[in-house]
């Protein structure tokens, strides 16, 4: 018995009869500008696939730069229906000229430097809509339009931004997307557009002054207390901080023991910190410390006593000897 595809055909039109898609109008486009397809772009293609399935559209990949044939195949396995290959690096005018006749429904750019410059420009030039920084995208089932999730307040939350006009352009932070598809049964086409955009000469680079890593501004802090027992134990905390690119701090006990200097003291009588991650090794915790880390994002406490004050404050507790745990963690980080 053969499958009744009449409903499907009615929905998808002639393309559902098994022909390869040829029309490029509409559709969900993904723009890859550096040629090479990295993991981020494959995830973006996957997100494009999910959007396209909800919208009833095809996924097209515009691959500009020096891409190999293997990249085209990987793109298809990741969810693209058609891969269009071009050479060089398009300027805004080139992209506008490319997309204007094709009337895309959705265009997704990765949040690379070129994506952040070209995506919004394309949206403005084609009178479309834009989410300039999206962490995720979905399709609103009622209005059949793309809704981007834009991080706000330093990613404390995401704002739903419905893209009203076509093309709906989004510049996407691909690192936050779900893992890429790798579905060997997918088929599609890879074709040359014949377009070769100019390649601009690489620009000279220069060293920039880097802001010193201070406790008050650090995104990750490793802090040690009396539970590290010796200076050698505290040295592990310092090594852990180096491996994580973190700032080093401690509590009053660590200051008294001479393991830290006064400007490394965290707490009410020291520095108030607001890192995204605070790793407390061998600290029992007291009001002084807690008032210094009130604005910390995630607190991880490694110390042996489940009834220590810090156990109720930390998001994650590991009840173990902090020195041994630090060694194990360091080993895993260096692997």
């Amino acid at each position, binding site marked *: 018995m053969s499958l009744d595809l009449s409903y499907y055909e009615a929905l998808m039109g002639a393309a559902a009869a098994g022909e390869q898609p040829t029309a490029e109008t509409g559709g969900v486009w993904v723009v890859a500008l550096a040629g090479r397809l990295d993991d981020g772009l494959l995830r973006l293609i996957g997100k494009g696939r999910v959007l396209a399935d909800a919208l009833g559209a095809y996924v097209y990949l515009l691959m500009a730069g020096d891409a190999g044939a293997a990249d085209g195949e990987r793109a298809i396995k990741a969810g693209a229906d058609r891969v269009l290959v071009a050479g060089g690096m398009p300027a805004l005018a080139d992209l506008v000229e490319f997309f204007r006749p094709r009337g895309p429904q959705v265009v997704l750019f990765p949040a690379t430097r070129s994506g952040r410059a070209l995506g*919004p420009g394309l949206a403005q030039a084609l009178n479309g809509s834009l989410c300039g920084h999206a962490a995720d995208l979905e399709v609103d089932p009622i209005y059949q339009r793309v809704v981007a999730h834009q991080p706000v307040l330093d990613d404390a939350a995401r704002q739903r931004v419905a893209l009203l006009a076509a093309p709906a352009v989004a510049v996407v932070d691909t690192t936050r997307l779900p893992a890429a598809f790798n579905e060997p049964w997918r088929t599609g086409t890879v074709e040359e557009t014949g377009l070769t955009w100019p390649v601009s000469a690489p620009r000279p680079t220069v060293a920039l002054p880097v802001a010193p890593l201070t406790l008050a501004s650090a995104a990750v802090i490793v802090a040690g207390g009396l539970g590290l027992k010796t200076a050698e134990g505290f040295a592990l905390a310092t090594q852990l901080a180096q491996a994580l690119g973190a700032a080093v701090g401690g509590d009053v006990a660590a200051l008294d023991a001479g393991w830290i200097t006064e400007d490394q003291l965290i707490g009410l009588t020291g520095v108030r910190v607001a890192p995204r991650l605070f790793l407390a090794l061998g600290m029992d915790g007291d009001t002084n410390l807690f008032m210094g880390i009130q604005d910390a994002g995630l607190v991880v406490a490694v110390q042996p006593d489940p009834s220590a004050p810090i156990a109720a404050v930390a998001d*994650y*507790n590991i009840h173990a000897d902090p020195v041994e745990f630090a060694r194990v963690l360091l080993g895993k980080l260096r692997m």
Partner: protein
Amino acid sequence: MRIVVCVKQTYDPATVKISRSREEFDLRGAVKITNPADRYALEAALRLREAAGGEVIALTVGDADAEDVGREAIAMGADRALLIAGPELASATGRAVARALAAGIGHLAPVDLVLTGQVAAVDGAGGLAPRLAAALGWPVALDVVSLAAAADGGIVATAAVGPGVGEVISLALPAVVAIAAGIERPRYPQPARIANAWAPGLLATCTAQDLGLTAEDLAPDVEVGGLVLPPERTRGQVIAGPLATAAEELLAALKAQRLISAAAA
């Protein structure tokens, strides 16, 4: 050189709360300020004027309150300001704002350089500079941390491309440049300039209609909805088990929440 700096009024992020129950911003007690990144843009414009001469004009779009931002720019050192005001502009989305600013820049012609802050505080997405450049048909440079006048009449911009690494971009004018918050703080406005910033003749106001913009030009391109909130914080969780597995579990959780770079684990 005539430099236009686009300045925007935003809320001070430290005073904006999130209402979990209503899934929206809680703006009670929120304080309106000049977008911090725009102050860096103003500083860059003032330094360029000090080095190469010219005029710095602050341009802002919004409601009547946005006048404060223009006045603050004048207090910081801008020669004058233009406010494009109107109720429809207070709630304008990115596409409309870019159009209004482009029309304002046209009104201020001839303009050599437009500077904006890279991103707006609270809910900015960094799309303004490229949008504005597209609306004007001018080149754009992003992530710029310093600017200098070039001998050939253009400018040289240094853009941050990675930690400690910059790229030197030569731009012919006119151009749009997005200034990123740098290490050196922008100057404080001089108190005497603050006292004089409300003097007549320094700030001009016009409406969108004055600039020839129609309701269709200013139609919203996006509709902003509610907030998607991360799960509530649960304190006191325990990662149990032997050290090796606990360490792995911890690293996986930290990676998933993007608290440590993928390279570290």
